[in-house]
């Protein structure tokens, strides 16, 4: 049947051998075509990687005798994939009474241990394997039991599903305010971080908040100073950090406050720099580290409510 008609660019020729000239076997060139051999442990058809032949050594292994050890008795060809496409039928033990009236005794098994050995020995030998079971034959999601014994076994031996991807970080929420400037052209740029203030919890590294804001100033500015605001209107002891950098260049403003007691700290701080940038990145982080017995913390123990701001001074 196969490869007696050859095809190229819509033209068909009939030939018992390869006519050459780039013609491919008609039907479905270049794609896997197999024939399932019934009830044999070897094949009697031509299978090879040649385009003239079938693409896999495909068997329905015999179901009699020690069927589950068949891998020990077959010839595994090193030059073509071997595939068990249909084999001993698996039936759940609790269905045996009915199944014994439907199927011949040799055609099916209720031995999960034998079937598991059958699958594992085949796959360890590099044989491609299709499970042949009663629920699968019926293709019935509404099978009387949600999981057959065989399906339970598969879940137990399958690798666990990959963990769900982490949720995307919340979209940065900020606003850029550019002052009108003084007679010398100096301006202050306030980057309002609108996510703050908000409550940060302590007691676990999972609660540490780290957030970055990529800010487009709209045009390049000559930055001569940068500053930050860290406020803490209530809560426990913590560490609060602001960093400001040019996105693809210099910067390096770093400020890390450790609030160790209930007293006030310097909420605003400015340092001098000299660089030109249009794109700025602001990083903030907040971690609550310890309980402050004096703290006002309506949200409960080990909580704090910081808020942040970033400033650029340009000329």
């Amino acid at each position: 049947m196969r490869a007696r008609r050859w095809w190229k660019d819509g033209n068909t020729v009939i030939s018992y051998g390869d006519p050459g000239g780039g013609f491919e076997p008609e039907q479905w060139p270049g794609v896997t075509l197999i024939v399932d051999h019934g009830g044999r442990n070897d094949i009697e058809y031509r299978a090879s990687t040649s385009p003239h032949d079938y693409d896999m050594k495909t068997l329905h292994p015999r179901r009699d005798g020690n069927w589950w050890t068949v891998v020990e008795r077959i010839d595994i060809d090193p030059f073509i994939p071997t595939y068990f496409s249909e084999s001993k039928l698996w039936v759940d033990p609790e269905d045996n009474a009915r199944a014994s009236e439907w199927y011949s005794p040799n055609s099916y098994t209720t031995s999960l241990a034998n079937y598991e050995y059958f699958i594992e020995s085949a796959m360890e030998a590099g044989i491609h394997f299709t499970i042949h079971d009663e629920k699968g034959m019926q293709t019935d999601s509404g099978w009387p039991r949600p999981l057959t014994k065989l399906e339970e076994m598969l879940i137990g031996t399958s690798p666990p599903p990959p963990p769900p991807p982490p949720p995307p970080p919340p979209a940065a929420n900020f606003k850029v305010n550019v002052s009108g400037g003084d007679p010398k052209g100096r301006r202050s740029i306030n980057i309002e971080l609108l996510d703050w203030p908000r409550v940060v919890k302590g007691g676990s590294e999972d609660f540490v908040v780290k957030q970055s804001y990529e800010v487009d100033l709209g045009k390049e500015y000559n930055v001569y100073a940068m500053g930050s605001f860290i406020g803490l209107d209530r809560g426990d002891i913590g560490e609060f950090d602001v960093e400001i950098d040019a996105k693809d260049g210099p910067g390096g403003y770093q400020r890390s406050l450790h609030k160790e007691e209930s007293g006030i700290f310097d909420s605003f701080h400015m340092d001098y720099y000299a660089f030109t940038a249009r794109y700025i990145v602001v990083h903030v982080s907040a971690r609550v580290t310890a309980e402050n017995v004096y703290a006002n913390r309506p949200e409960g123990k080990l909580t704090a409510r910081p808020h942040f701001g970033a400033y650029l001074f340009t000329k």
Partner: protein
Amino acid sequence: MLTTDVKNVLFNGVVTPILGRSSFKFMAHLRYGNLDGAKNWIEHNQKLGVNLLRVFGETQYWEGHPMFGSPPILSDVWDYGALENGHRPTEVTGLNARMLRDLFSLSAQTGMAFEYVVDATMKHADPPIPWGTIGHCVRQTLSFMRKLQQEFPKALIMVSTHNEWDAHSRGAWEADYGDADRTKALN
């Protein structure tokens, strides 16, 4: 696209050992437009680690042979009246074309591979369908699938023909290797 090299099976270029599952009545879901049922079965099996479903393209001749505990429900895929009278329809039926298109589309959508058995039960027909006529159905199906693979390049389909060749089929061996009397009788 599902391909093979010397030793391996490749799913869209990635070496992938097959852990498949018999799903003989899968195409019946598509026959009756039950795409949700088909997707549920795919999802259920992907959770088990199964990456290929072995499906039958036709089950008409389970009738009278109550195989696998239920009558056939996948009918009218081919013009069986014509086949039984030795005719060779030159195209797949509209119903068959829709089912095959849904199969390719589902494979491309879900990443589930399929072994599609073109002629699962035609060999059981009584009176027999000539072997050459069955081969003609195979060729018509493959020709149509070539177009679908171009339309759905990510679909993972391999095609099985002459299912259980040596166990049941009439005349396969003779057709290829010679036994003029039997072949003539069957064609």
